[in-house]
């Protein structure tokens, strides 16, 4: 127990020579889950916290999570963004129990201890007691009882936080590939167009793998093939950060390999149907290229999405070993006109829990989880594209990015 709290995990040994095979135990083990909170989410990683545009004014705050730790993100009087653990230094109550708001200071309602917007304890109710009775003794120093702070960096309107002093600067953490990938999509000030979330009945890592799994796209999601619309072919490619931790997957409007898909895809009735209203497939080029799909994953749990004109960030929150929640924040640009907003709303039918080309991702993770629990030692296999963790140009038929995720997980977990 104690040992676990120090973050070691003596009992678990990685059972294979590399990360091309993974034991099902990683999805079902309660102890591993607990260690992950310490060594992954509270370790040397940058957790996505929120969008800068969600807290534009001084005093604006939003509550969020890093792993399963509740977090407050707040903009202070100087306009700087601060992130603190949402746990009062006194008895541990949530300091903010509303999803968002604007405040002058952070007051915990339980005993009215007050913190400034940087998390410093500024006032303790009845610190001098009543009529000279009760209250604090001199040994109590406010400076020793602030909220636990995270280091914060903002990049292209995305707010990230880390618990660790050792985490390298965000740009280095992301690496050049991802930095330019984010640059490509988030080219202008962002505007939130809406929210929704999706509950997965599976361990958080299964959804992360799903996003890094460029292999499944046209095989699991057969909407394009079924309706014979322009489709994200298995061409395009993936890029992987040097660390192996992050990746991006993209497809362009060049259907070289359709026949191969036709040859492969046994399940979907090829072009048997047509969309009566193809509005939602229309792509208004706005990013200066004709990349139709671009999925970026930033370790551990952020996804940045461009699918035609659907822009979104997806934040994954672990909810115990068997469940996770994906919070979708659908984006537009500040300068979208009404027509563009309506177009984004229409194309949004493609994504999310009800999305024509994404709903299946909600189901498959739960199917793995159910099958996983009965045999913890059995191994998955990820042989696509060999065993290496390397980019792939012209084909997305590789599991390299998933292998890269496991490299990152093992490095954090020291397993």
């Amino acid at each position, binding site marked *: 127990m104690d040992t676990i709290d120090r973050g070691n995990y003596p009992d678990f040994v990685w059972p294979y020579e590399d990360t091309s095979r993974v034991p099902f135990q990683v999805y079902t083990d309660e102890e591993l889950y607990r260690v992950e909170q310490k060594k992954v989410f509270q370790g040397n990683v940058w957790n996505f916290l929120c969008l800068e545009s969600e807290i534009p004014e001084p005093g604006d705050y939003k509550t969020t999570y890093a792993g399963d730790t509740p977090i407050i993100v707040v903009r202070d009087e100087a306009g700087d963004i601060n992130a603190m653990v949402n746990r009062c230094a006194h008895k541990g109550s949530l300091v903010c129990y509303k999803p968002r708001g604007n405040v002058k200071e952070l007051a915990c309602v339980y005993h009215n201890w007050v913190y400034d917007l940087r998390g410093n304890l500024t006032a303790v109710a009845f610190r001098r007691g009543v009529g000279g009775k009760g209250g604090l003794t001199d040994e109590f120093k406010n400076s020793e009882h602030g909220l636990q702070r995270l280091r914060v960096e903002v990049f292209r309107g995305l707010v990230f936080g880390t618990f660790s002093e050792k985490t390298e600067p965000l740009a280095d953490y992301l690496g050049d590939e991802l930095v330019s990938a984010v640059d490509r999509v988030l080219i202008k000030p962002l505007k939130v167009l*809406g929210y929704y979330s999706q509950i997965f009945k599976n361990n958080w890592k299964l959804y992360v793998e799903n996003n890094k799994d460029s292999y499944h796209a046209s095989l699991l999601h057969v909407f394009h093939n079924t309706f014979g619309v322009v489709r994200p072919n298995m061409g395009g490619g993936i890029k992987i950060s040097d660390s192996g931790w992050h990746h991006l997957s993209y497809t362009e409007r060049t259907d070289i390999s359709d026949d191969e898909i036709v040859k492969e895809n046994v399940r979907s009735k090829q072009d048997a*149907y047509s969309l*009566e209203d193809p509005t939602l497939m229309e792509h208004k080029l706005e990013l200066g290229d004709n990349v139709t799909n671009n999925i970026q994953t930033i370790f551990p749990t952020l996804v940045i999405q461009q699918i035609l004109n659907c822009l979104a960030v997806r934040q994954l929150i672990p909810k115990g070993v068997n469940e996770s929640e994906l919070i979708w924040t659908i984006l537009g640009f500040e300068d979208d006109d009404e027509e563009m907003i309506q177009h984004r709303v229409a194309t949004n039918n493609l994504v999310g829990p009800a999305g024509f080309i994404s709903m299946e991702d909600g189901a498959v993770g739960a199917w793995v989880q159910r099958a996983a629990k009965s045999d913890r030692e059995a191994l998955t296999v990820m042989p696509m594209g060999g065993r290496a963790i390397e980019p792939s140009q012209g084909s997305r038929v590789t599991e390299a990015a998933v292998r890269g995720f496991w490299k990152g997980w093992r490095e954090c977990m020291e397993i």
Partner: protein
Amino acid sequence: MASIPSQLDDEVSLRLRIDALNANYVHTIDDDRLEDWPNFFTADGEYSISTRENHEMGLPICLVQCKGTGMFRDRITALRQANIYEPHTYCHSVSALHISSRSQGVIATKSNFTLVRTMSEGEMMLFAAGRYVDKIVDYNGELKFAERRVILESRRIDTLLVIPI
């Protein structure tokens, strides 16, 4: 099928006709007669599923949006032919019909619903709760939805949402 005589067009029968419309609508979905679902809407009718959070914050995004018969039919075709999901059924409760206004033949109403989802192995859950915010028109003696906005109480969808609500 015995329907409320439409000429008896006073508040009493109107309320009952709308009750019948709502009942017919949910049974059509619950009985998996989804190919009939588009017929509950006018040719240029609009259907959307959003959340109370988006609604109250004035955010435009919906989980589902259909405008015009084509998009309704595409939803059902995708559900039948393209999308993958574990078999499940719906059971709707609908109540608290409130007629907000009537003008130029458009009846604005609001009702509450709860929706129980059952998976093929028998797992049952309260999948959704919320309200229907509707604009109803009389289309030669038949009531149809010019607009049905589904406002979910929760932002959370368990697993996926493929069958219309």
